[in-house]
């Protein structure tokens, strides 16, 4: 790694930068490289290597687009979810779209920031709450002397319609959304394969350590 300013041509710098990136260097161990000015005139010019050292800044284009699109996408997810019982759509598709909104926000505003906003409690709560609602609605029929998920025995008006809607909207959709977002956060945290398979604590450590290069991308 050359710290000297202006060493080599741009092409050499670029080639070294790409090779460096593929080796996945541990940036935190190295001293930070001060931005230097190189090139044939006085214009500031960061070489590829130096640019890799600068912290990642979120893209204004992506953030603006996500800000505009996210409410519509979430509305579309709810639309698909609420149409599940009597037309194309359903809890699985709608939950996946709602989870995609969270993924989109994570890509635009940074995964760590999104993880702080959409905490693990919410993720697990969505999945577990959905399971509880699904099981609860299913068990009502069983307790009443019928079979599992026998909507007609629910003590509400239009029990078959609203029972099915309840399972779709309050049961399946939150489960799918919570599990998908949780899997995404797990994958984004990365796996520590230096000494065999990563364990739970290692993954948890990786999520709290925001100095790693993987999380910045």
């Amino acid at each position, binding site marked *: 790694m050359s710290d000297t300013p202006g060493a080599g041509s741009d092409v050499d710098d*670029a080639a070294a930068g790409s090779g*460096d990136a593929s080796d996945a260097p541990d940036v935190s161990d190295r001293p930070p490289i001060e931005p230097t000015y190189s090139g044939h005139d006085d214009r500031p010019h960061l070489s590829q290597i130096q640019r890799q050292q600068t912290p990642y800044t979120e*893209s204004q*284009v*992506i953030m603006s687009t996500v800000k*505009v699109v996210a409410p519509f996408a979430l509305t579309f997810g709810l639309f698909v979810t609420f149409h599940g019982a009597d037309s194309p759509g359903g809890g699985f598709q709608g939950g996946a779209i709602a989870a995609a909104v969270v993924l989109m926000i994570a890509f635009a505003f940074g995964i760590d920031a999104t993880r702080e906003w959409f905490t693990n409690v919410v993720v697990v709560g969505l999945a577990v709450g959905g399971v509880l609602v699904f099981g609860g609605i299913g068990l009502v029929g069983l307790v009443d002397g019928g079979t599992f998920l026998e909507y007609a025995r629910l003590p509400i008006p239009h029990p078959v319609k609203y029972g099915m809607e309840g399972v779709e909207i309050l049961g399946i959709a939150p489960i799918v959304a919570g599990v998908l977002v949780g899997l995404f956060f797990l994958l984004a945290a990365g796996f520590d394969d230096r000494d065999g398979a990563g364990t739970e604590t290692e993954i948890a450590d990786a999520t709290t350590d925001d100095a790693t290069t993987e999380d910045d991308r």
Partner: protein
Amino acid sequence: MALGSLDPVTTARVVLILALLAGALFFTFVSMVGVIRLPDVYARAHTASQADTLGAGFGLAAVALTLGWQGASVKTAILLFFIFVTNPTAAHAVARAAFEDGNVPWTEGDERR
């Protein structure tokens, strides 16, 4: 359904729909060839975004023309609007992530990759 048995307006409409569909297929095919054959991630991202702009544009225009004046056509137009908004952003995100990763653009004279 023979075209001759229809009135001229319907015939023109069917011909226009077929022309739009042909355009959609053409641009999607060009984009597909580009994604397979172009040398680096930047060029591929650029051609992949063209598939949506022109391919999906013509295709959804054909759909809207087929459906005529009804609610579903409005949904088609909204769909086209969101594709036009999100597609360039997705291409931008791909290119930006590749550059952030230190991906060197292919230039003339380099080996094919």
